[in-house]
C-alpha cells in the first residue's frame, strides 16, 4: 500500500461532516499555521515541498505564491480553480464531494499564507451538487470559528465563498476563470500582466487547482522535509489519478509518485487491467490535451526503460515518444477502439469549447473537426492527413491562451503514432464506418 496524504480517511463514514473530519485530524494545519507560523513561513514551506500545480500544467505552487504582488492597501485574493473540465479528469470532484472540509481547510491555510481575506472557490456549474456540499461544510466551519473574524484569536480574518460557472471548459484557464468570476464571458486575458499582479477585480490574485490547495494541508502538517521523502526526486508527494476508459476498475486513486505505469494499470490495488480480457492499444495519461501513447510506449520508454507515474518519466522522450502527467486524467483504450474516432471526438470537444476570441483557434479547431469527421466517416482522402498537420501548425502558439495548443497536440500525436490507421480509413472507408458504427449509422454532425 502506498502512502495516502489526501485520501487516508476517505472511507470513514461521515467524513464529510465537521465532527468526524475534525476527529480524524482535521483543521490541524490551520492551527499549526495560524498559531506557530508566519504567512511567509507557510509560503516557504510550500516552496520547499516542490509541490507542482495539480491542475495540469505542473507549475510549482510555491513559486506561483512567491510572485504575488503585495501593494499596501490593496486586497489580495486566493481563487480555487474547481472548474475541472479536462476530459478524463474527475479527481477534484471526488475530493470535494468526499472531503469538503479538506478543501475548506486547504483554502484557509493557503489564504493565510497569501494574506487573502476573501477567497473564492470557482466551481464548474455542472457540479452544482458539489457546490451545495461545499457550502454546507463552509457553514459548519464558520459555526466552529474556522472562518470569519479573528480566527483562533490570531487576528486573521477570512471569508470564503463558492461561485459556480455556467458550462465552459475555457473557464479552467485561469484568466478566463477570473473573467467568469467577475460575471462576464469566459474570454482569456492577455498575459502579462499575470494574475499575481492583476487578477480578480484588478487585484493581485493566486489561482490554484483543488488538489494543489488540498495538498497544502498535509505539507503543513508533516512538514516539507517529510513530504519530500515521498515520491521521486523531481515529483514529490502523491498524486490523484482519475483512471477511466476500458479498465476493469476505473476510479480515483491516490498514488505515490514513481510507481510503475504497469503496476498502476494491472495491479490489484489499482485498475486491475483491461476490461473484458482485452489488450491495451493506447493511453492518454494526463487528460485529453496531452499526447496519446501507443501500446509499445506505455510501460516502457523509447529507450526501453521502465515508465513510471511521475512528471519526468511520463514526459520522457518529449512529444516524439513521451507524453505528460498533466491533470492525471488517465484514459485507457482497448484493442477494439478506433483512434481516428477518438481523435475526432476530442477535436469536436475543442471546437465546441473554443471561446472564439482568437481566429486560429476558433476557425482551426472547427476545421480540424470537419476534416477528422470526414476521415472518420469514410469520406476523407490522403491529403487530409497532411492538411490536419498543417492546420495544427497554424494554431499552435498563435493564440492568447493554451486551448489552441491543447487542441493541436492530441491530433498531432495521434497522427504521429497511428498514421496507418488514418490511412486505413481512407483506403477502407466502408470497413472503417462499419467497424465503428455497425450498419453505416453515422453520428450526427454537430458543429
Amino acid at each position, binding site marked *: 500500500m502506498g502512502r495516502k496524504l489526501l485520501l487516508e480517511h476517505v472511507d470513514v463514514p461521515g467524513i464529510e461532516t465537521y465532527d468526524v473530519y475534525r476527529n480524524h485530524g482535521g483543521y490541524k494545519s490551520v492551527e499549526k499555521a495560524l498559531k506557530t507560523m508566519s504567512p511567509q513561513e507557510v509560503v516557504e514551506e510550500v516552496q520547499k515541498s516542490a509541490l507542482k500545480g495539480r491542475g495540469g500544467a505542473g507549475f510549482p505552487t510555491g513559486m506561483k505564491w512567491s510572485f504575488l504582488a503585495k501593494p499596501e492597501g490593496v486586497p489580495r485574493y486566493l481563487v480555487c480553480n474547481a472548474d475541472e473540465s479536462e476530459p478524463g479528469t474527475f479527481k477534484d470532484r471526488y475530493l470535494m464531494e468526499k472531503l469538503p472540509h479538506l478543501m475548506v481547510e486547504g483554502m484557509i491555510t493557503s489564504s493565510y499564507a497569501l494574506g487573502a481575506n476573501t477567497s473564492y472557490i470557482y466551481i464548474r456549474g455542472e457540479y452544482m451538487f458539489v457546490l451545495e456540499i461545499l457550502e454546507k461544510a463552509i457553514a459548519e466551519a464558520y459555526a466552529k470559528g474556522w472562518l470569519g473574524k479573528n480566527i483562533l484569536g490570531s487576528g486573521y480574518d477570512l471569508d470564503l465563498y463558492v461561485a459556480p460557472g*455556467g458550462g465552459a471548459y475555457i473557464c479552467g484557464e485561469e484568466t478566463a476563470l477570473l473573467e467568469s468570476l467577475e460575471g462576464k464571458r469566459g474570454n482569456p486575458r492577455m498575459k502579462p500582466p499575470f494574475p499575481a499582479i492583476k487578477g480578480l477585480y484588478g487585484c493581485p490574485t493566486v489561482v490554484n487547482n483543488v488538489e494543489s490547495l488540498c495538498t497544502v494541508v498535509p505539507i503543513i502538517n508533516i512538514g516539507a522535509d517529510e513530504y519530500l521523502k515521498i515520491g521521486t526526486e523531481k515529483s514529490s508527494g502523491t498524486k490523484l489519478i482519475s483512471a477511466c476508459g476500458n479498465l476493469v476498475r476505473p476510479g480515483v486513486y491516490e498514488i505515490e509518485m514513481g510507481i510503475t505505469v504497469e503496476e498502476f494499470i494491472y495491479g490489484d490495488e489499482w485498475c486491475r487491467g483491461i476490461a473484458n480480457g482485452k489488450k491495451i492499444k493506447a493511453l492518454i495519461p494526463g487528460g485529453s490535451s496531452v499526447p496519446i501513447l501507443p501500446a509499445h510506449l506505455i510501460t516502457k520508454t523509447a529507450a526501453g526503460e521502465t515508465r513510471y507515474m511521475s512528471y519526468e518519466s511520463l514526459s520522457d522522450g518529449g512529444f516524439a515518444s513521451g507524453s505528460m502527467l498533466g491533470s492525471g486524467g488517465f484514459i485507457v483504450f482497448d484493442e477494439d477502439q478506433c483512434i481516428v474516432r477518438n481523435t475526432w471526438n476530442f477535436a469536436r470537444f475543442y471546437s465546441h469549447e473554443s471561446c472564439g476570441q482568437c481566429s486560429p483557434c476558433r476557425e482551426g479547431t472547427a476545421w480540424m473537426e470537419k476534416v477528422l469527421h470526414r476521415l472518420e466517416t469514410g469520406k476523407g482522402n490522403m491529403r487530409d492527413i497532411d492538411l490536419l498537420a498543417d492546420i495544427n501548425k497554424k494554431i499552435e502558439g498563435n493564440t492568447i491562451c493554451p486551448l489552441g495548443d491543447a487542441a493541436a497536440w492530441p491530433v498531432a500525436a495521434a497522427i504521429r503514432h497511428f498514421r496507418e490507421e488514418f490511412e486505413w480509413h481512407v483506403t477502407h472507408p466502408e470497413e472503417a464506418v462499419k467497424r465503428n458504427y455497425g450498419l453505416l449509422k453515422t453520428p450526427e454532425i454537430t458543429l
Partner: protein
Amino acid sequence: MISTLETQAKRPPFSAEKMEEVQGIIKQFPEGRHKSALLRILHIAEEEFGGWLSPETMDYVAGILNIKPIEVYEVATFYTMFNLEPTGKFVFEVCRTGPCMLVGSDDIIEYIKTKLGISKVGETSADGMFTLKTAECLGACGYGPMLQCGKQYHEHLTPEKVDALMDEYRAKYTSTNSQN
C-alpha cells in the same frame, strides 16, 4: 428539480424568499462588484422561471444587478448550461466526450432517441416530458456512460437503467402535479 416543476408557468419576479437568497449571493462580492453574482442568479432564475431564460427573465436579472440587459445576454449565450428556449419538463444531458464514448455513450444517445421517438439530439418527446441534449465532459469519466438531469448525475447507464430513470421522472412529475 421539484421546484422547477411547481413553477413551470411562473414568471418574474422572484418570491420574497428567493429574493433574499439572491441578495445574500450579491453580498458575497465586494462593493461595486455585484456583477460577479450574475451566473449564479441566472442558474436560480432558470430553475425558478420554467427551466429556461426568456428575454423577460434576463431583463429582470439585469434590473436586479443594475447592469445593462446586453451584459446578461452576452453571458447567457456564452455558457452552454443556460437554456435560451423552452425545453421539456426534464432535460437529459448525455456526456458524449471521449472517455464516455469509449464505454458506449453513443449507444445510450441512440437508445434515448428511439425511446423518445425523436430523430435528433436537441428535440423533445411528443408529450413534452423529456428533452435530449448532449454535453461535453461532465467529470464522470470513470462512471460512464452518464447523463445529468437538473442537479443530479446518473452514472453507469444501461438501456434498462434509462428505462427506469424515465419512469422515475414521469412518476415524480405526476405526483407533484396531482398534489397541486
